[in-house]
């Protein structure tokens, strides 16, 4: 048999044996994003097939089902500072079980879009998309300050300019995927000097526009720590109530503010314990809301029911920390002082993580890859020498 004939016989898709499209879709849905990138290059029909919105949804759905069934190891994405420069970040994808770095990403260079002095901070991760907020407040008013980014396919999107005109003093952001409508949403709370009430606007990726919304906020201030966990379809921030006087206890003053991404409703949830200023952090733990107070982890077993807060874990020693993350397996990852600490809740052992990429972590989130933004986003070309420089 000549070489040519051999090749003719080999292919599953060659003229004599061609698999129907619905089978190809089934196969594609089981592939990781990177292999799908290769598949797109195989032929033109595959190229368009992978980019179909219904396939992107199918792929996402299949990934979440197989993740749930196999309990596959989850990945965490870390925003890390560079050794040499303070304003330079790289993004490291690590396996939570083994803590091995699997990939490194470079955030797109936005200087050609006129963004020179940006300080982007990783504030959210949902279904393959990362949400970054520019904390540089001294901005010309027309600049966008939120960027959505899909690192696994190298596409990003700068969100349009906010509808809120005046310059903000402070801002809080929530980001998440809304399964019912297959859409990503960003909610932004903007605080200004003139008033204590925030202005609120909501962005949705499908319409690609901001929409202002009216709120019934009382005098409270939402604090935006490094994360606003998405639980039960709502994002959560820690909030402080100004209106209630100092005679009331701390317990009433600090609470959790939630924003339901689908219904677009704000709601207050009481904390399990009284906390001091700034201490404690809201986490997501197995689809439940959790609260970590340096020494205890409280879990709200029944979402929205204040009485269902239960103390699930107690740490052997209290750990001062600035932000944390909880995986589905009983692992707590916290940033304490300048170190990242890995805490195994089953055997109550913790250890400091040393060396790159754990040395200068500024933000961390659970990450799951997807094909989101494949059609909408702008492509970035990462220069290989830039990556090499980071590794050096």
């Amino acid at each position, binding site marked *: 048999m000549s070489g*040519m004939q051999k*090749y003719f016989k080999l*292919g*599953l*898709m060659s003229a004599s044996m061609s698999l*129907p499209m619905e089978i190809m879709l089934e196969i*594609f849905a089981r592939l990781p994003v990177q292999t799908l990138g*290769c598949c797109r290059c*195989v032929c033109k029909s595959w190229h368009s097939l992978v980019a179909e919105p219904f396939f992107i949804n199918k792929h996402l759905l299949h990934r979440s089902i197989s993740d749930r069934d196999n309990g596959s190891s989850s990945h965490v994405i870390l925003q890390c500072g560079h050794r040499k420069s303070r304003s330079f970040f790289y993004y490291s994808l690590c396996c939570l079980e083994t803590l091995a770095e699997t990939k490194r990403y470079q955030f797109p260079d936005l200087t050609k879009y006129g963004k020179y002095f940006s300080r982007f901070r990783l504030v959210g991760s949902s279904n393959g998309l990362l949400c970054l907020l520019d904390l540089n407040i001294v901005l010309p008013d027309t600049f966008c300050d939120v960027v959505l980014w899909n690192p696994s396919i190298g596409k990003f999107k700068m969100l349009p300019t906010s509808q809120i005109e005046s310059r903000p003093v402070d801002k809080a952001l929530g980001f998440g995927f809304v399964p019912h409508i297959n859409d990503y949403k960003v909610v932004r709370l903007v605080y200004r000097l003139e008033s204590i009430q925030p202005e609120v606007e909501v962005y949705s990726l499908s319409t690609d526009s901001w929409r202002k919304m009216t709120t019934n906020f009382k005098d409270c201030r939402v604090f935006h720590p490094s994360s606003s966990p998405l639980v039960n379809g709502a994002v959560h921030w820690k909030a402080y109530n100004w209106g209630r006087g100092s005679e009331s206890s701390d317990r009433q003053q600090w609470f959790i503010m939630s924003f339901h991404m689908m219904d677009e409703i704000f709601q207050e949830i009481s904390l399990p314990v009284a906390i001091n200023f700034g201490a404690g952090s809201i986490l997501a733990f197995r689809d439940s809301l959790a609260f970590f107070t340096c020494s205890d982890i409280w879990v709200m077993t029944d979402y929205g029911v204040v009485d269902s807060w239960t103390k699930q874990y107690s740490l052997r020693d209290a750990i001062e920390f600035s932000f944390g993350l909880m995986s589905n397996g009983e692992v707590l990852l916290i940033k304490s002082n300048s170190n990242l600490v890995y805490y195994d809740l089953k055997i109550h052992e913790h250890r400091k993580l040393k060396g790159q990429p754990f040395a200068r972590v500024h933000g961390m989130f659970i990450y799951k890859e997807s094909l989101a933004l494949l059609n909408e986003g702008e492509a970035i070309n990462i220069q290989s020498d830039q990556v090499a420089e980071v590794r050096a």
Partner: protein
Amino acid sequence: MSSSLEKNMLILRSSDGEEFIVPEVVAVMSKAIKNMVEDECASNTIPVPNVDANILAMVIEFCKKHDESEAEAASDLKTFDSEFVNRGQEALYDLITAANFRDVKELLDALCQNVAEMIKGKSVHHIRIQFLGYQLFEILTSNFIWNIWCDRDFD
């Protein structure tokens, strides 16, 4: 139902005329056959066109195993699946077509997973060889721009 057959048994006839006696519970793992049985348009012999005896035997073996081992550990079944689908390209192709045509969901899932494993992490070149036959592809398209495009983005 013919009297010589036990209750709840069906006869499947492959495209090359061979007949298989199969318990109904096993046969109805194929949605297509299930629909036929439910609509009562099945006589005691169900023809399975497009599927030859060799492939039909494999499909039946798969269904039998899945029917028996419902209570068994899921991991055992998974090992069986991955061993079962580990076959040459041609048998794989025939099995996929049969599973798709007869609508046997479990088998189709296992087969698709197997093909996905085959190309997971492979380069564009490898995927082309696997699926299209590289030279065939070259002859059909002779599209060099396409190649340049690929190498730029993903390799």
